[in-house]
């Protein structure tokens, strides 16, 4: 009898060891990502919101479906919205925002249009159209408060915008890191630069918010104001999403534009003072990302306090998606960096031991 028990115990140990070791082999890496997704959802289901969204250090100004349906934007090409973007940008900076990042890219100015218009070009007829926007960018960036986004391997800001913000010192990459299963669970911290690595958009915004330069340490890790940013994949931050659709306060661009029309500077001061602000889109089809929040998403919307327009009525056709607007990826990364609560992934040894333990229990 004792021999049987001993033999069973040896078998259990061997099976547990095998299972534990196999579980950390590269073909099973996908499980590691799924565990992040599952734990994000479980925490959300078990504990709900961990903090008041109003206290979030990062807010989003969303070019949303409501913006597209609201005059003067309705029916107007987005490339002609720049003047209004500049006006809202001025108001946000004057309201005391720490820094403003752009998750939207205008790679061309309407002034560059070479469409014929009578005997002239459309761009020539529009000369001066982007002047106010470029001045807003120049003013904000000279104070270190504007960071434009670009897509490495894709589009960047128009040449005029590049000049307005003083070229590359105020332009950062919006690329994100995709796991092998095409799910975004991480953002890069830096990208290769000429002389030294260049911070990603998220790291740049966070570093300006805490007024500290990010530093590379010897083993390749990045620290920000003493916070050694954890990451199982080198040079990345693993995103720590809250659940639901209200974790990042989101303002409708249409409402803020109307607020500027009303000269309500107090609203901007109340809502944006001391905040990191990101201009992005919140649309049904554009820039949607599947992330580690995919099992914990909620109905997204511009539900931050309103200034001028009434809150958008509930949309019966809206449904909960597994994807989120891309701007929330950057917003969450900045939030994690400032709050120092990026996901800490366990190393191979720890994962192996835990897997062996669970296999033995099973």
């Amino acid at each position, binding site marked *: 009898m004792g021999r049987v028990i001993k033999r069973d115990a040896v078998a259990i140990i061997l099976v547990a060891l095998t299972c534990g070791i196999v579980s950390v082999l590269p073909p099973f890496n996908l499980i590691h990502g799924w565990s992040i997704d599952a734990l994000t959802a479980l925490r959300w289901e078990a504990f709900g919101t961990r903090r008041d969204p109003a206290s979030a250090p990062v807010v989003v100004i969303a070019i949303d*479906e409501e913006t*597209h*349906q609201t005059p003067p934007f309705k029916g107007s*090409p*987005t*490339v*002609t919205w720049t003047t209004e973007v500049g006006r809202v940008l001025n108001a946000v900076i004057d309201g005391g925002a720490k820094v403003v990042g752009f*998750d*939207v*890219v205008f*790679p*061309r100015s*309407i*002034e*560059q*249009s070479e*469409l014929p218009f009578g005997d*002239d*070009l*459309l*761009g020539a007829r529009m*000369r*001066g159209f*982007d*002047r106010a926007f470029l*001045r807003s960018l120049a003013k904000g960036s000279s104070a270190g408060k504007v960071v434009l*986004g*670009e*897509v*490495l391997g*894709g*589009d*960047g800001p128009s*040449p*005029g915008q*590049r*000049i*307005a913000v003083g*070229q*590359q010192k105020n*332009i950062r*990459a919006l*690329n*994100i890191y995709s796991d092998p299963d*095409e799910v*975004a669970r991480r953002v890069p911290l830096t*990208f*290769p*630069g000429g002389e030294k690595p*260049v911070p990603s958009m998220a790291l740049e915004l966070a570093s300006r918010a805490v007024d500290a330069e990010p530093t590379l340490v010897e083993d390749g890790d990045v620290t920000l104001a003493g916070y050694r940013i954890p990451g199982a994949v080198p040079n990345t931050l693993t995103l720590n999403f809250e659940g639901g659709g209200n974790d990042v306060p989101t303002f409708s661009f249409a409402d803020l534009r109307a607020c500027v029309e009303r000269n309500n500077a107090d609203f901007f001061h109340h809502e944006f003072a001391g905040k990191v602000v990101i201009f992005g889109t919140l*649309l*049904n*089809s*554009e*820039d949607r*990302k599947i992330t580690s929040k995919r099992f914990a998403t909620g109905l997204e919307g511009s539900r931050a306090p309103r200034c001028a327009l009434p809150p958008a009525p509930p949309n019966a056709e809206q*449904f*909960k998606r597994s994807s989120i607007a*891309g*701007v929330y990826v950057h917003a969450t990364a900045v939030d994690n960096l400032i709050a120092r609560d990026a996901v800490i992934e366990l190393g191979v040894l720890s994962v192996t031991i835990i897997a062996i333990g669970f296999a033995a229990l099973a």
Partner: protein
Amino acid sequence: MKSLFAAIVVFIGFTGLAAAQAPVAVVEDVQGKVTGAEFMDYVAPGAVIKLGPAGKVVLSYMKSCWRETITDVGTVIVGTEDSKVHLSEVKAGKVQCDSNQSQPVDRQVRESAATVFRSIGDDVSISPQITLYGLSPVVETTGRGKLVVERLDVKGERYDVNLTAASVVRGKFYDFAKTKTALKPGGTYAVSLGSQRTVFLVDPRAEPGPTPIIGRLVRLK
């Protein structure tokens, strides 16, 4: 020399050369008495800028990355890559204006979370740009990578295709009929590849199978 320069300025003024071309430079700074340009103006070749006493203008050329600081009384004619300056003083040099676009990008970070507003006519709302009369689209694109077709009006329908040279016909056509993939009649879908995207409607009476391509062709842009 003086008269030749004046003649050029007059000629440009009469021909309207500046107005007929796309802009090449941005006015980065203006101080003192300057006419013909304002702070943060785009300027086209042939534009004439006049500086008065203590005037200063900084021009940054978008393509050549040439930056000129021009001071004191004189006249400037904007060129394609640099300016012709008469009488005023010029300090010029090349600036680092190249983006990081030329840097190699790892496969894992090739994707971005960003919205690119490309040009006039872009409409990123969900209004369909075309209607298909077949349930299996043919997508025309020269791009490679993950092609996504996602239904916009109803949750849960999504198709991911890895576009490779082998999977497309004539280098740019991917036919969903070949994989027997059929979309739902009446549905609104977005097809996207990288930053290219097109929204289309499948006609409620659309037919299944390899119907004529002209009725189910989606050009990605």
